[in-house]
């Protein structure tokens, strides 16, 4: 179903069906209702539950993109999205809380991926240390609220839980500042060199955080910070959540936990919405054009009056600030963070989201975040559970008479997460280098090497007089 948005309008029967306005609305609603209903009626005791769960939730998760891809008026789309996000998802999430957790994780990583997309996708600066800014935001909130034996606790600098909302903005500012600090030394670098330096920067922040437990204990080192503060549950949310949960599942226990999850879900969705909104505004502005110009041809951009230093720093700072805000939310949601939450693999995973979905395009990046997060947290683990379930009942595959019990434990799908990611990236580069939902401009760029009808004509005899390496500002 993901192909809705990207298939060209011609030669597509689905599009033809969608040409009718009412059919389009009907189909979009039907999609959401059917997948949502299937999700609700899954029998958790069934032998095949993990497999069914594995397939159906991703389909349901695609429904926002189905709505966005349908040829409807903006107002209709917005209404449908609002209903989906604020009614359907919370209800399904309250019936089965793992779905709510997945929705929160997807929103968080989509926000991160969109932030990285500003740096990598818009301005074309390959940043492999992006998780550092995420860490800055997370540690900012964690240090000021964790009851670990840090200098903050000893000196009584801890802040109350409601300060969470202020700290989101503090996270934005601090991460932007760190983004500029990273940006300054790497302004002269491009491509591979930039990637290596940013990679080093990401590691630096992680190691700094690990070692800042002495001489003054700021971060509690490798032990991490626990019991991080969480935003207080607003008045009435407890009752609302309790009411919904009771009417749909009959449960009355753990209402507090449920309400908290709902609060985090709403905050994550809200933050993602703001980020999408800001990213779109940046894209369609002189700033966005200047970034694209820098990505396309740095020398030409600066000669046309685009101040490279300023625009690059701006890209680093805005990308970082998104990660900073999300970091604060992430720390509050996890209530425990340690340096191992911010490793290089995490940066690469976020980059993979950007690349898989479609670098440069907002919708594509959200899709990428969805796919990678679901693979990581949902699909592979459900595959493992399914295997385990079949092993427990000594299931024998018909026709080939294979005992699932004989499947080696070493070949557990969940253990092969990096391999699967690697395979996906390799396949993407081979078959869809511009991503699943390619941004128009990016797909053109990546096609450039194939049809060189113009390049042969344009390149004159002597091009070495303007050396790009000499062009960086002093």
């Amino acid at each position, binding site marked *: 179903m993901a192909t809705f948005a990207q298939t060209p309008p011609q030669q597509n029967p689905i599009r033809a069906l969608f040409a009718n306005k009412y059919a389009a609305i009907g189909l979009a609603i039907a999609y959401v209702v059917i997948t949502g209903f299937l999700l609700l009626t899954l029998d958790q005791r069934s032998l095949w539950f993990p497999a069914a769960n594995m397939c159906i939730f991703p389909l349901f998760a695609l429904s926002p993109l189905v709505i966005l891809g349908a040829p409807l008026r903006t107002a209709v789309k917005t209404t449908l999205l609002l209903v989906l996000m604020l009614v359907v998802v919370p209800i399904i999430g309250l019936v089965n809380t793992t779905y709510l957790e997945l929705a929160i994780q997807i929103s968080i990583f989509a926000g991160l991926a969109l932030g990285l997309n500003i740096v990598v996708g818009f301005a074309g600066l390959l940043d492999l240390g992006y998780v550092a800014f995420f860490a800055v935001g997370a540690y900012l909130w964690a240090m000021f609220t964790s009851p670990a034996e840090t200098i903050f606790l000893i000196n009584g600098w801890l802040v109350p839980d409601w300060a969470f909302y202020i700290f989101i903005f503090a996270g934005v500012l601090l991460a932007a500042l760190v983004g500029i600090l990273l940006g300054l030394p790497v302004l002269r670098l491009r491509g591979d060199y930039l990637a290596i330096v940013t990679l080093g920067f990401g590691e630096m922040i992680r190691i700094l955080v690990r070692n800042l437990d002495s001489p003054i204990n700021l971060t509690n080192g490798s032990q991490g910070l626990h019991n991080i503060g969480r935003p207080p549950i607003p008045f009435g949310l407890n009752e609302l959540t309790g009411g919904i949960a009771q009417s749909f599942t009959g449960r009355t226990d753990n209402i507090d936990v449920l309400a908290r999850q709902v609060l985090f879900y709403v905050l994550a969705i809200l933050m993602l919405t703001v980020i999408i909104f800001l990213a779109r*505004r*940046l894209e369609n502005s002189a700033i966005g054009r*200047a970034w694209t110009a820098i990505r*396309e041809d740095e*020398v*030409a951009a600066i000669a046309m009056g685009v101040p490279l230093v300023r625009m690059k720093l701006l890209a680093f700072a805005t990308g970082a600030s998104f990660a900073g805000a999300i970091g604060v939310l992430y720390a509050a949601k996890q209530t425990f963070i340690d340096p191992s939450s911010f490793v290089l693999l995490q940066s690469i995973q976020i980059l993979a989201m950007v690349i898989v979905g479609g670098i440069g395009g907002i919708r594509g990046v959200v899709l990428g975040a969805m796919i990678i997060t679901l693979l990581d947290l949902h699909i592979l683990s459900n595959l493992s559970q399914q295997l385990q379930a079949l092993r427990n009942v000594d299931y024998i595959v018909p026709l080939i008479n294979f005992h699932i019990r004989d499947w080696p434990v070493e070949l557990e799908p969940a253990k092969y997460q990096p391999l699967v990611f690697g395979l996906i990236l390799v396949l993407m580069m081979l078959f869809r280098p511009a991503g699943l939902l390619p941004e128009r401009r990016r797909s*053109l760029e990546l096609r450039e090497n194939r049809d060189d009808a113009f390049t042969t004509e344009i390149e004159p005899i002597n091009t070495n007089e303007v050396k790009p390496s000499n062009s960086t500002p*002093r």
Partner: protein
Amino acid sequence: MSSILQTRELAKSFGGIRAVREVNIDIPEHSISSIIGPNGAGKTTLFNLLTGIYKPDAGTIQFNKRSLIGLRPDQVNAAGVARTFQSIRLFPNMTVLENVMVGMHSRLNVNLWSTLLRVGGFNQQEEQVRQRASDLLRFVGLGGKGDEIARNLPYGDQRRVEIARALASDPKLILLDEPTAGMNPNESEVAMRLFRRIRDELTITVVLIEHDMRVVMGISEQITVLDFGQKIAEGTPEMIRTNPHVIEAYLGRRAAGTENEPPKLDTQEEEVVG
């Protein structure tokens, strides 16, 4: 006529190669001037020095009674010097209109807050930018092609987009690096008309680097000849045509020695020198 651009003792070396040596140039205001010279004479290096892409080793550049030394390329652009490139350097995957809009960057109020909040006249400015960009496209004869992807345009049109993009920064001086390279005589004729209109209608001083002697002799009010990084002659087309140094530079010492009739310079010099 007062000069809008003035260089004194301008010099630049790359390693042991002295690409530009003590060059003094005066470009009269509202003129169309050409810089010519054999390949490797330092013409493009000179443009790169003027626009801040290279830093000169020595010498001064006065533009409009202001020094350009030490300015970054974007500051030079903001000061009123725009340029095109010898090898077309459009933003290939942006639309034609967007290309021209980028050219306006130094004249815009680019502010993060007004961009994010769409306040402070952001929308009006965007509208003006769009309007002015399509006006410029019409000026260079590309009206209605604004939405095409730049790299899909034919070669000659790409050259025109580059000129429109340079004009977008509202310059006082425009430096065109081999703007008619690869054009046939008809296209060159059209291009020459465009250069005159840039000077006459927009009152912008035009400087060309050019190999096509038909264009150079047909349009220039002043010609500067560079050879091995040095200025060897400067003057009107008539003066340059008969200057023995120029003939020597282009055709070799023997050709210059057998004076009598000044050789015709209307072929591309690659063929002559090679």
